[in-house]
């Protein structure tokens, strides 16, 4: 019961936060020079002042700021993010078409980074002077200091030139036909490089943190108790130590989630991955205000949902978080 209550509270705050994000985004875009009328005029090949004013009246752009804001919020509440003049599509539809690609990339990269990071961390914690341990330290430094787009381009070049077995652009091959599994494998093959690129930065962070927490946990009293019970090395490490080391790593993953989403924008651009990132890039270049606002809104939504999920995951591994008692 308490669990449902705290969760409801979290959702309530998340909604408030989202509204704040909306207001902030809208205000910022409003302050920026240029508006929808300019974009429409541009796509018509230029227009004079009367036409521009007419367009502004049509779209309510001549109304006071607060009225515009109120109307925008009202529309968003009904899942209407406006119309993109550049793509000539409702923004909601545009975003929903691209969202799955971004989610796929972000979630798979995050899971890969977490999984490999924890495995490396655990391994090097058990052998702190071993080769893997040194590799983790070095790799962490490297992965953290190398910018994403650089890693991306590096991977892109090496794969397209040296081992051209994996596709380096797009999400699917349109020439491929077949059943679900054929398409599944096609998408998976396209996913590999962008996923590795995005995962590599966070992988370094996670492996370092899990190495540190794991070393601490392995020296703890309850691990000694587990050994004193006569449990096998495997049970001591993976049952008793690992579960305790996961909380900090999951917390970090939650905090990093927004960074992963923004990293995805760069990775998508490098690999022409048809997600929100490339859409953001295109709409910024085209000054497509409704689309930009819509993407900002959805990114905030994704990050907030990600944080809620992190909270849930933490409850699963650590009974002291929130639960009973």
């Amino acid at each position: 019961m308490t669990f449902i209550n705290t969760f409801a509270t979290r959702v309530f705050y998340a909604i408030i936060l989202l509204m704040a994000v909306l207001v902030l985004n809208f205000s910022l875009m409003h302050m920026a020079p240029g508006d929808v009328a300019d974009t429409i005029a541009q796509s018509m090949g230029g227009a004079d002042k009367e036409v521009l004013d007419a367009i502004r009246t049509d779209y309510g752009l001549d109304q006071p700021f607060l009225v515009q804001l109120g109307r925008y919020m009202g529309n968003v509440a009904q899942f209407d993010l406006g119309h993109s003049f550049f793509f000539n599509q409702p923004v909601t539809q545009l975003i929903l078409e691209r969202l799955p690609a971004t989610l796929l990339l972000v979630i798979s990269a995050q899971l890969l980074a977490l999984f490999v990071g924890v495995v490396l961390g655990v391994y090097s914690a058990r052998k702190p002077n071993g080769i893997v341990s040194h590799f983790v330290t070095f790799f962490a430094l490297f992965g953290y200091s190398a910018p994403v787009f650089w890693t991306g381009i590096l991977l892109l070049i090496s794969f397209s030139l040296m081992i051209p077995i994996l596709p380096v652009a797009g999400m699917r091959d349109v020439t491929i036909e077949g059943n679900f599994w054929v398409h599944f494998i096609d998408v998976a093959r396209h996913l590999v490089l962008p996923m590795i690129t995005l995962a590599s930065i966070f992988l370094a962070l996670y492996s370092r943190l899990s190495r540190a927490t794991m070393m601490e946990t392995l020296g703890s009293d309850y691990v000694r108790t587990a050994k004193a019970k006569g449990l096998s090395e495997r049970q001591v490490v993976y049952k008793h130590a690992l579960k305790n080391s996961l909380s900090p790593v999951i917390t970090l993953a939650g905090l990093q989630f927004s960074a992963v989403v923004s990293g995805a924008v760069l990775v998508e651009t490098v690999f022409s991955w048809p997600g929100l990132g490339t859409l953001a890039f295109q709409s910024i270049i085209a000054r497509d205000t409704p689309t930009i606002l819509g993407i900002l809104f959805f990114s905030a939504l994704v990050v907030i949902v990600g944080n809620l999920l992190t909270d849930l995951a933490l409850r699963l591994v650590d009974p002291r978080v929130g639960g009973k008692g």
Partner: protein
Amino acid sequence: MTTPLLKVENLRIELTTRDGVAPVIDDLSFELGQNENISFVGESGCGKSMTALAIMGLLPEKIGRIASGSILFDGEDLTKASPARLRAIRGNEISMIFQEPMTSLNPVYTVGEQIAEVIREHQGLGRKAAWDMAADLLDAVRIPNARGRVSDYPFQMSGGQRQRVMIAMALACQPKILIADEPTTALDVTVQAQIFDLLRDLRKDTGTSIIMITHDMGAVAEMAERMIVMYAGRGAEIGPVEQIIEHARHPYTKGLTSCVPHIVSQLTEDRARLTEVPGIVPGLKDFGKNMCLFASRCNHRTEECLSARPPMKPFENGQIAACWHAEDV
């Protein structure tokens, strides 16, 4: 006494520290009989926990090692046993309760699971049977409403209750030896008395031999048949508790016990603690020296004490003391 259950002979444990290798335990020998309770006393840092960990085969990895000597359990030398064999013994035939009840239980598993786990491991019981047994054990260590509390997490329990859980866990497989390393140090006084009562009653019921490490002379007097006084990694005096309290043969033991006039008191009354002997314990790097390490604090000191390590001198009444002047003390 018939053949001892546990026989530690000339045990030497070396710790590798920044200052080099030092013997934390230097030539220690003692025996533990069937259904006997033997107590270790001595100041902090004299190697009591190290001795216990060595018996468990749990010396800190890469730091501590058994350099020589043997630990014979039922005739089997544990210092030569394989890791798999040691795992089969640990928690099953020899188990241990630690000094720190607050941190010795895993915070992310229920106490029931932590007790049931050891039963499944060693007795091969199924999940359900092991869980039921865990509840029975909680009841046996006198946790009220045991059935309801098996699924509690350690953070939902007090220090005393956690130590009871540790005891339940240690006794789950009816071990032949229970090592209790200062089981009450971290607990408040009334709870200390309850834990000692519990241990005493459980011992009566199960016949488990106990190695009890404690600073509580009242508990030693009440519960143990024999005691071992340790000083700086060496056995200073060994013998039956009553005799040692009545007439200590080692000046250090005398210092420990002399200021406690009403040692043999009821467990629930004011607890008599080990008194401080003036002076300081030598540092770890001095542990190996060929002299009496207590000499600097001793008023019986002579040239002899500084030039050679005193041998263990046996007396007719079973007392053994490592002092050049044991006869005169």
